[in-house]
């Protein structure tokens, strides 16, 4: 393993330190934690419902890169691929509560759900009103009452943008939670990997793929997917993922938003080529794309791969997605 790091145990605090020091006008670190909170003047001026997200590190710029006016109020970074602890989440909640309550945006992993739940219990003891929405956009995993259910992946960035913009516009906590849940229900993502990520503490890639193989349906923590196949042209990959995703939508009329997301080790060049193919295929299928975004938004360390997110969107959501925002990475 070759990585530009110091001690493996110091990765997260050093990363957060680098992030806040190079973006001091936007964010600051909450003392004694690896959580960051808004530091722009508008944060104090315009009171709103607090929006807190977080999760394991290794998905940068998620979540700290989305802290700022119009998106998240605070973000809590756990160890690499490991949910943050309840005490840190609790600190973030108390740092952003402005009397209107706090919405927690949690990705659907056992660890995240349990730790955010414990933090919620702690904050409720302080009489802070808390609601939680759980993102589960990864359709490569079956949803069933008898499993953990679908994972939260790249669609999380869209949820944070829409809910963040709505919170800035003054929406109350209950409505934000309802909006967030509705958005989540309309987001579908599927990802592929060309090369697995190397978790620093592990030191080698999470799984091995042949020189011409890709894995379909991977998660953002090296979770293996549903099939290993030979790599095909971008066009065919796009068509395959689109077909899988569109099956999930009963109604293909109206506005849609897309996100082509790089997994961390895949250059923008390939992402744009893939996005071009996605737009071609959606146009052929008469699906109306009203918002699109391309980039490394929700990564998995140095994983090489890409994910496609498609969201069926209300006109309002498209407006929230397009609103300018002042964050490190949106």
């Amino acid at each position, binding site marked *: 393993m070759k990585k530009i790091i110091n001690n493996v145990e110091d990765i997260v605090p050093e990363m957060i330190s680098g992030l806040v020091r190079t973006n001091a006008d936007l964010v600051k670190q909450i003392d004694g934690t690896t959580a960051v909170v808004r530091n722009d003047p508008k944060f104090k001026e315009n009171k709103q419902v607090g929006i807190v997200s977080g999760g*394991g590190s290794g998905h940068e710029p998620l979540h700290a890169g989305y802290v700022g006016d119009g998106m998240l109020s605070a973000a809590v970074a756990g160890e690499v691929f490991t949910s943050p602890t309840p005490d840190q989440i609790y600190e973030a909640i108390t740092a952003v509560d402005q009397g209107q309550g706090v919405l927690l945006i949690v990705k659907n992993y056992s660890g995240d759900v*349990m730790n955010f739940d414990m933090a919620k219990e702690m904050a409720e003891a302080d009489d802070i009103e808390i609601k939680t929405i759980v993102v589960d956009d990864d359709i490569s995993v079956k949803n069933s009452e008898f499993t953990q259910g679908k994972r939260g992946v790249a669609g999380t960035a869209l949820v944070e943008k829409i809910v963040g913009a709505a919170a800035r516009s003054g929406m109350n906590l209950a409505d934000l939670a309802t909006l967030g849940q509705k958005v989540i229900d309309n987001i579908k993502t599927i990802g592929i990997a060309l090369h697995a990520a190397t978790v620093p503490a592990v030191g080698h890639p999470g799984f091995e793929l042949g020189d011409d193989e890709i894995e379909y349906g991977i998660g953002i*923590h*090296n979770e293996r997917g549903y099939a290993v196949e030979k790599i095909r042209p971008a066009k065919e990959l796009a068509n395959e993922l689109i077909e899988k995703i569109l099956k999930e939508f009963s109604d293909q009329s109206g506005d849609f938003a897309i996100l082509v997301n790089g997994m961390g080790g895949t250059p923008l060049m390939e992402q744009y080529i893939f996005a071009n193919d996605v737009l071609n295929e959606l146009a052929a299928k008469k699906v109306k794309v009203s918002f699109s975004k391309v980039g490394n938004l929700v990564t998995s360390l140095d994983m090489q791969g890409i994910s496609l997110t498609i969201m069926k969107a209300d006109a309002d959501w498209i407006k929230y997605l397009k609103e300018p925002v002042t964050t490190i990475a949106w």
Partner: protein
Amino acid sequence: MKLELVDAKKWITLFVEKLESNQTILNELDTAIGDGDHGTNMKRGAEAVTAALEKKEPETLADLYKTTAFAMIQKVGGASGPLYGTAFLDMSKAVKNDDLELSDLIQIGTDGLKRRGESDTGMKTMIDVWQPVSDALKADKFDQSVIDAALENVKGLVATKGRASYLEEKSKGHIDPGAQSSAYLFESLIEVLGE
């Protein structure tokens, strides 16, 4: 059967030692069906427990379990942090009752896991070690074979909770990392009881 404070301390000490020396194994198990960090997570917890116990020598069983719980909750993160944390926290509360048998204590920890994880036996998690151990203690038949059998059983299960559940059928044939770390916990207990 009840555990004296001095034995309970040994138990926890042996447990954290095993966690520290088996970090790689736990990571590898988690790499196969999870995200590869269970060893690292538990090592972090182990160090935190050791540090907390050194900082302030616990004077009661309740103290000991509470210190262990808080260290786990605050330092482990992931799924295993709140799980072990909740189990030990519930055990800490229950052990204040002087009449509590060791088998009851472990059942209370197991119930904590089930509550926090919204889960039960058969889901290929650490619960599939805790519950058989608890059952064996109740029947006074607790020894290494119970743990071995539990792990063997876990191996054959299809995961329906935690990250391994994403793999569905493919999770079969692998030992669940949390079950393995719990095996270390109860192997430590055997060492203490065997003395």
